[in-house]
C-alpha cells in the first residue's frame, strides 16, 4: 500500500518535474526572444520614423601621425583617407561627430527572421 503511494507520488513528481523543465526552457527562450524583439522594436521605431539613418560601413579615423603604424593594410589605406577628415584635430581636442543617429538595421532588415545576435 505504502509502495503504491510512493509510486503515485513518483509519477506526479516526474510529471511536474518535466513540466518545470519545459517551463524553464520556454522561459529562457522567451527571454531571449523578448530581448531580441525589444531591441528590434526600438530599432524599427527609430528607422521607420526617420530618426536614424542606416550605416553601411565604418572605418576607424586614425589620429594624425598614426597612419604609418603597423596596422592592417586595408585599414592603413582607409586610414589615409580618413586622416584627411581628421586633420587639424589634435590628439586631445574634442572630436566632431554627426548629429544624425546611425543604426545597422533598416526596417526591412530588422523585420526579417533574425539569426543574428542577442544583446546582453
Amino acid at each position: 500500500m505504502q509502495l503504491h503511494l510512493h509510486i503515485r507520488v513518483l509519477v506526479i513528481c516526474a510529471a511536474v518535474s518535466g513540466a518545470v523543465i519545459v517551463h524553464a526552457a520556454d522561459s529562457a527562450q522567451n527571454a531571449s526572444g523578448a530581448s531580441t524583439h525589444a531591441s528590434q522594436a526600438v530599432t524599427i521605431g527609430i528607422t521607420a520614423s526617420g530618426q536614424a539613418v542606416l550605416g553601411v560601413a565604418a572605418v576607424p579615423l586614425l589620429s594624425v601621425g598614426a597612419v604609418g603604424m603597423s596596422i592592417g593594410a586595408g585599414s592603413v589605406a582607409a586610414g589615409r583617407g580618413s586622416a584627411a577628415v581628421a586633420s587639424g584635430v589634435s590628439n586631445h581636442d574634442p572630436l566632431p561627430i554627426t548629429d544624425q543617429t546611425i543604426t545597422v538595421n533598416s526596417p526591412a532588415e530588422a523585420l526579417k527572421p533574425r539569426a543574428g545576435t542577442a544583446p546582453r
Partner: protein
Amino acid sequence: MKTFFARFALSLLLLRWCFICQAASFSGSSAHAEAYFSSEQIIQFAKKVERKLAAEGARVAIVARMGRPLSEMPEGMHFTHVAFAVYSNITVADGTSVPGYAIYNLYQKDDKPSVSQLVQDFPVDFFAGVAQLEAGILIPSHELQQRLLEVNGSPTYASLHEPRYSLIANPYTLGRQNCTEFVLDVVNAAIYQTNDIKIIKANTKAYFKAQPVNVSPFKLMLGSMFSAEVTNTDQRGRAVTATFEKISEYLQTYDQGAKVLSLTP
C-alpha cells in the same frame, strides 16, 4: 526493500526538481516582452554618450551597458555588456560619410547562446533594449588608444576571439570567453603589442585582478547543468570573471591617463 528504492527515487526526483528551479533562478531569464525605454529615449541617451566620448577626444573607448536591472545582478557586477567604441568615418545609406562612433562587440548568437560572434554596430543599437539608462565609459590613455587602433585594424583582433561562450568566463584561462574577457584580451594585446595568447594570459594572470563570481557554487553547478551559456569548465577553484569595473581598475593602475566615467540621462 522496495520501499527503500521508491523513497530513494522520490528523493532524486525532488532533488532534480529543486536543481531545475535553482537553475532557472540563476539564469535570471525573466521575460521582458516590452522595451524598457522609448526609441526617443534610446536615441537621446546614445547620442549623449557619443557626444561625451567626442568631447573627451576619445578615438577608442570601452563602453558598458546595463542589459538587466541592477537588482538582478550578482554582487560586484553592474554592467552586463562591454565593447569598444571607435571614432570612425561612417558611410551611411545615401553614400555620404559622417564622423561618429562605431561599436565593436562580441555578441552571443540568438539561436545558440553558447557561441559568440564579433559584430560591429552603432551606439543606438548598443543601447537598444537596455534595462537601465546608464553607461560605463573607460577612456584609455592616448598611447593605449593608438595601440588599440592598431590591434583593431589587424588580424590579431579576430584571432583573439574564442567563439565558445560562457557568461562567467575565466579571464585567466583559455577555452571559454565572454565579451568582457575578449575586451581584456584585446587590451592586453595592445599593451604588450603581441598576438600571442599565451603571453596575453600570462600577463593577465600576473597583473589583472578578476571579479569573484558571488554566486554559490551550488547555483553555479546548476547553471552549468541547465544553461548552455554557463559553464565552469574553464574555472579552477572559486569562479572568477572579468568585469567593466575590474578592467577600469586595471587600466587606472597601469595606464597613466586612463579615465573612467559613468553617464546617465
